[in-house]
């Protein structure tokens, strides 16, 4: 029962809570980044960020 994983992360309540919060934070970052990458790939060329360079550059020239 006393596996190292159990001892390190779950045995103490504080460790457990820390594990939960850190995993949550990390997972959310990874999930959000991942889904944005996928979404932007599916919608390549359709979103404003894909086309705004056309209009930004034009302003620089003026």
């Amino acid at each position, binding site marked *: 029962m006393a596996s190292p994983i159990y001892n390190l992360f779950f045995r103490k309540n504080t460790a457990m809570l820390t594990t939960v919060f850190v995993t949550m934070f990390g997972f959310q970052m990874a*999930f*959000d980044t991942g*889904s*944005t990458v996928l*979404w932007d790939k*599916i*919608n390549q060329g*359709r*979103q*404003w960020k*894909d*086309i*705004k360079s*056309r*209009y*930004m550059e034009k*302003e620089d020239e003026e």
Partner: protein
Amino acid sequence: MALMAAGVVMAAGGAFLIFGRDVHAMTPAEEGLHPTQFPWEHTKWHKTYDHASLRRGFQVYREVCASCHSLSRIPYRTLVGNMMTVDEAKALAEENEYDTDPNDEGEIEKRPGKLSDYIPSPYKNDEAARAANNGALPPDLSLMVKARHGGVNYIFSLLTGYPEEPPAGATVPDGLNFNPYFPGTGIAMARVLFDGLVEYEDGTPATTSQMAKDVVEFLNWSAEPEADERKKMGWKVIAVTSVLLGLSIWVKKYKWAPIKSRKIVYNPPVVGTPVSKLKQMENQKAK
């Protein structure tokens, strides 16, 4: 015999009433032609608006529709990051004048528009709009896609559906135009889109159907500006909840496995030894 014939007729009549010709509250003309389902890309569950199309559509709105239709729920700031840069939107806002708050003397003055201002309406009020349009009010277009059955398909069909001439036999009241898609077929708005009417800066050929497509996609955005974000969030919710669903099915199986696979055996008591006999045996023991 006559009775039987009457019965057959009545049954046939009843069947006709139930299964026979449809009964409409309106004639098909009053209902309007149902619009074609067009293969819109932006209405798919996994697709955002085509923002280049939104930009073109907004141009069509400004150059064509804005002289009659208001778009009163759209402030300039919402254009930024969707179809315009900040500077472009600011410049556009400054083209119009807005009332200031009353100054110390209570006078209301004019100031150039800001990003937080709303796109101005072409008429002072509905009465002025009616007076300028033969008594017909050009409705506000902000939520038009949501406000009509058929949504984008309807408006596209309406804009591109004016025939050269009304079909033979159609009656078109004075001052109205024939459009089969408009309920009643007589619409106060004449055909407004013609090939080459606007000039797109990105070089897209401005055909009637291209302009209609762009302006309709733009109107869909104005009615549902949150759609891009909503769809993306929807997929994320589906992804997370399907993992959670899988997990909960697994946990349920895990918890129930011992209960479901348990074999329950019932051993009935041995029957057949009468009570009197048991008593006899007991008495013998006692001796």
